[in-house]
């Protein structure tokens, strides 16, 4: 078994230049991912979780600017020459997307789309590439692989399409998989299959996985560690057990409580009032302040930094102890 690699992200920021001024979609995000571990990036729409993922491997489109450090295998992916970055992309770090229908090229056979990946990253010849493609389809559970390679994406069902995308991503044995809401477009029984597939592949290939999702159930079922994002920043991170047992940030706590629990049917849910702020109009101080029931003047004056409160446990909240203590009220 080859040794895995770790990804280290330091102070990653992504800014988009718009006609109305710069908008910071990701603001000083730091985290690492270890081999064989699933890190969940959790947040709602506009929290910057997807942009973070795309920033890691240079998939941000021109008006966007990425700063910070993304260390992989001893090099900073944000400053390596394009040729080197291309070898990492798809070769060592692979990415899968939310909508397999739009992420697969509709006019090319899936076989070609697997093969072009192998061609870019391996020295296999034509026949070997085809054999490998069949092997990959078997691996991700697509029956009748030989025939299916000749098919076009629209000839697959949603779940099968997602498997095709995973097969393409895995083609060159990546050591890190970036998954952007890979099951959001799928039905629950299919989502379950795909998540289990990703987990078993993780074990088999000793890959690290970064899983971007908004679904806390998915997080609970698959992630080892999580980082919760709000308005472009990580507000809380730690092991999945610690965070589900005792959220320390008011946002995390609200998020967990707003999911209906068995045993409290037809009672009011604990909702977070208001809506997430527009990135162009962030409030001063804590971005969650205006929606937070714990907020006071201090929260409005200064923006709390992400601080270590235990081994591998960080939170960016001035009142994290109060939040932790108040937990009992709603459990």
């Amino acid at each position, binding site marked *: 078994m080859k040794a895995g690699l770790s990804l280290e992200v330091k102070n990653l920021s992504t800014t988009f230049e718009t006609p*109305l001024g710069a908008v910071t979609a990701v603001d000083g995000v730091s985290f690492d991912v270890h081999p064989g571990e699933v890190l969940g990036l959790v947040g709602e*729409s*506009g929290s910057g979780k997807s942009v973070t993922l795309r920033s890691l491997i240079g998939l941000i489109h021109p008006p966007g600017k990425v700063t910070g450090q993304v260390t992989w295998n001893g090099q900073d992916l944000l400053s390596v020459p394009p040729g080197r970055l291309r070898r990492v992309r798809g070769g060592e770090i692979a990415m899968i997307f939310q909508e397999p229908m739009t992420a697969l090229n509709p006019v090319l056979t899936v076989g070609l789309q697997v093969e072009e990946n192998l061609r870019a990253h391996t020295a296999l010849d034509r026949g070997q590439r085809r054999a490998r493609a069949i092997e990959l389809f078997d691996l991700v559970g697509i029956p009748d692989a030989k025939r299916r390679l000749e098919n076009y994406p629209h000839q697959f069902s949603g779940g099968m399409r997602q498997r095709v995308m995973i097969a393409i991503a895995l083609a060159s044995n990546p050591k890190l998989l970036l998954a952007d809401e890979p099951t959001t477009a799928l039905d629950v029984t299919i989502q379950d299959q795909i998540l289990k597939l990703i987990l078993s592949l993780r074990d088999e290939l000793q890959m690290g996985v970064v899983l971007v999702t908004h679904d806390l159930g998915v997080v609970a079922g698959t992630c080892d560690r999580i980082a919760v994002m709000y308005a472009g920043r990580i507000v809380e991170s730690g092991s999945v057990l610690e965070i589900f047992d005792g959220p320390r940030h008011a946002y995390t706590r609200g998020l967990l409580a707003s999911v209906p629990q068995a045993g409290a049917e037809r009672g009011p849910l604990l909702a977070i009032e208001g809506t997430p702020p*527009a*990135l*162009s109009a962030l409030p001063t101080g804590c971005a969650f302040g205006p929606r937070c029931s714990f907020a006071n003047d201090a929260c409005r004056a200064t923006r709390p930094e992400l601080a270590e409160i235990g081994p591998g446990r960080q939170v960016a909240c001035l009142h994290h102890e109060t939040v932790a203590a108040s937990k009992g009220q709603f459990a």
Partner: protein
Amino acid sequence: MTFALSLRGQRRKTRARRIPVSLIVGGAMLAIQLLLAVFPSVFAPYAPDSFDYNALMQPPSLAHLFGTDNFGRDVLSRVIHAYSVDMQIAFFATVLPFLFGTSIGAVIGYTGGLAETIFGRLVDAIITFPFLVLVIAIVAVLGPGLNNMYIAVGVVDWVFYARLAVAEVKVQKRLDYAEAGRAMGYSPARIVFRHLMPNIITPLIVYWMTDMALAILLGSSLGYLGLGAQPPIAEWGVQIADAKNFMGTAWWMSVFPGVAIVVAGLSFSLTGDGVAEKMRTRR
């Protein structure tokens, strides 16, 4: 995707008040040309058809800013008077197709079914006729002249508006707000004309702008071929046809009407682009 959503908030504030540059420029150019078209004699220094045999084919001078033609007519005055004719062509050739095509298309798109199938076949058949060829053929049969040209254009042109309206309505009627109207028990007429129409009209107006530019091209082409406006009427195409034997010797005779056509066409396109942009930022 996620990012686009988060930008929604900020677009909200600045959107309504910003008018695209293209709309301002195009609109202003159109306004000036409309003035020329409505009051040509106010702006033209000479009558469009007064011959001056003492000043044949004079190059541009202070007396004749755009020079004179082979009958000694003032080119500037003829170009200005041609605005009445060509702007009229732009408007009259297209306004009925626009109104009729849009309404009938909206109704067909909403009704769907057999009406749509029949209409689809009609469109397939009509687009196989080269538009210009068909118009020329119809004008040939009806006889040259502006009115026959309007008829020839109108017979075919409404189909393009209707086709666009059908396509737009088919998209819009599936959206939940239209379904909500139906679920509310609103009448089909209310849904088509009050709910859907405001949401489909933008691309149709944009197309109308393009179509007016095309009508000017068509009108001047027919004028050039002798099938549209008839000499001695001042019309750009007719003017260029008159000038075609003097292209090398008296460039001013053809260049100024040509520039007028281009400017007119550009202002319609610019306005169309502006409308499109304005409406895009609104959504």
